[in-house]
């Protein structure tokens, strides 16, 4: 029998800090790319997506972790998907009834959250094999790692592509247009999101030599 670990023991803290850098879901585990491309045209939807993923990933991880000893191996993928989908639909329905405006923002993302590889990936890699508290922390950590990448990419795409930040016309205010700057339409398109993430990976690996791939 394993001894009882402190709630915030060193190992548990690592579950939250690792995904921020050395085990980042997007730049290291290569999960959640599709949404990183689609959602990051503007800051606002990126933040909404980050918060929704935080909720769904943590709760789903806990639910699967609680059920993990009961799930037959042969149907485990389907079970995980059903848990994720049910959770997302439940959230969407409740929002639609009581906070209609928020649900309108979210309805676009419902499909994207259900098929977000991060959620499925973490459920399979961690939730199925660990206890509920650890799974919860793992969900939190990965959501934070995902969120900061989303926000970083969205920051540059919205700023350079539309000249705004969270809808606020920043470039106009500081007079950059007068110097001849024009909104870079390419930034709005998905390929530039890929290149932006590529650059983030570059910077990350310069700082963290462990991640550099050997020849």
């Amino acid at each position, binding site marked *: 029998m394993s001894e009882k670990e402190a709630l915030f023991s060193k190992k548990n803290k690592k579950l939250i800090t690792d995904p921020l850098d050395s085990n980042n879901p997007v730049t290291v585990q290569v999960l959640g790319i599709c949404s990183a491309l689609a959602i990051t045209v503007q800051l606002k939807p990126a933040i909404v997506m980050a918060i929704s993923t935080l909720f769904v990933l943590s709760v789903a991880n806990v639910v699967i972790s609680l059920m993990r000893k009961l799930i037959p191996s042969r149907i485990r993928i*389907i079970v995980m998907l059903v848990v994720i989908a049910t959770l997302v639909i439940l959230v969407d329905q409740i929002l639609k009834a009581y906070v209609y405006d928020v649900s309108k923002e979210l309805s676009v993302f419902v499909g994207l959250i259900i098929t977000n590889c991060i959620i499925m990936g973490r459920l399979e890699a961690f939730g199925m094999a660990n206890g509920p508290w650890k799974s919860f922390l793992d969900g939190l950590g990965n959501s934070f790692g995902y969120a900061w990448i989303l926000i970083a990419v969205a920051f540059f795409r919205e700023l350079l592509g539309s000249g705004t930040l969270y809808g606020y016309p920043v470039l106009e205010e500081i007079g950059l247009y007068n110097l001849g700057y024009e909104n870079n339409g390419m930034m709005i398109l998905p390929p*530039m999101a890929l290149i932006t993430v*590529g650059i983030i990976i570059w910077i990350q690996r310069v700082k963290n030599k462990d991640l550099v791939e050997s020849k």
Partner: protein
Amino acid sequence: MQDLANIFIKSIFIDNMVFAYFLGMCSYLAVSKTVKTSIGLGLAVVFVLGITVPVNYLLENYVLKEGALIWIGEEFKNVDLAFLSFIMFIAVIASMVQLVEMIVEKFSPTLYSSLGIFLPLIAVNCAILGASLFMKENDYASITEATVFGLGSGVGWFLAIVGIAAIREKIRYSNVPPALRGLGITFIITGLMGIAFMSFMGIKLDANNKIDNSLELYEDSSKEVNIDNNNINQKEENLQ
């Protein structure tokens, strides 16, 4: 035949899942380290798509969409289960993937371990779900068209992942900065290939053959009015 060839070519090159719609990126980027594993995953995707798209087509047209259940009986004419499409498609895909996982584990354990987590991740591969959702939007006339679309999408994805894997293998001998090696440069190359593929966006293969009935009706009714217009003009002249 012409239609089927059109759909096939269109779904491989013009509506390419990876470069036009940027779906299925996670597995595409993670598994493309070697050509061998890419071929394995690519074939798995073609297989899954070739089966799930037609199965979902049958599901959509005979169970889910409005009036689909009419073959059970007249009373079911107005039953509309379309809201279940999303979750039913996912269920079909997840079952197929579970099947594929068991087959791969049995027949090629090396492939199974090198694919790792990305084999079960085919279930949430946005390209697979996306193909079924596009099939639903495109409203194909027959299951053959839907199957051709599914296979074409799969082949498009296959070509994309094998292509990038080949590039990655070759690029190992180039002077890529250490921090950019591997994943970083792959992202950038894919971005550049995506920009290149945008040149395909303007090509239209299908001619719009649908007969425009409402416009005909409008023209008919306007003809009647023109005759009356002449009468009115005459009357006005009389008055003057």
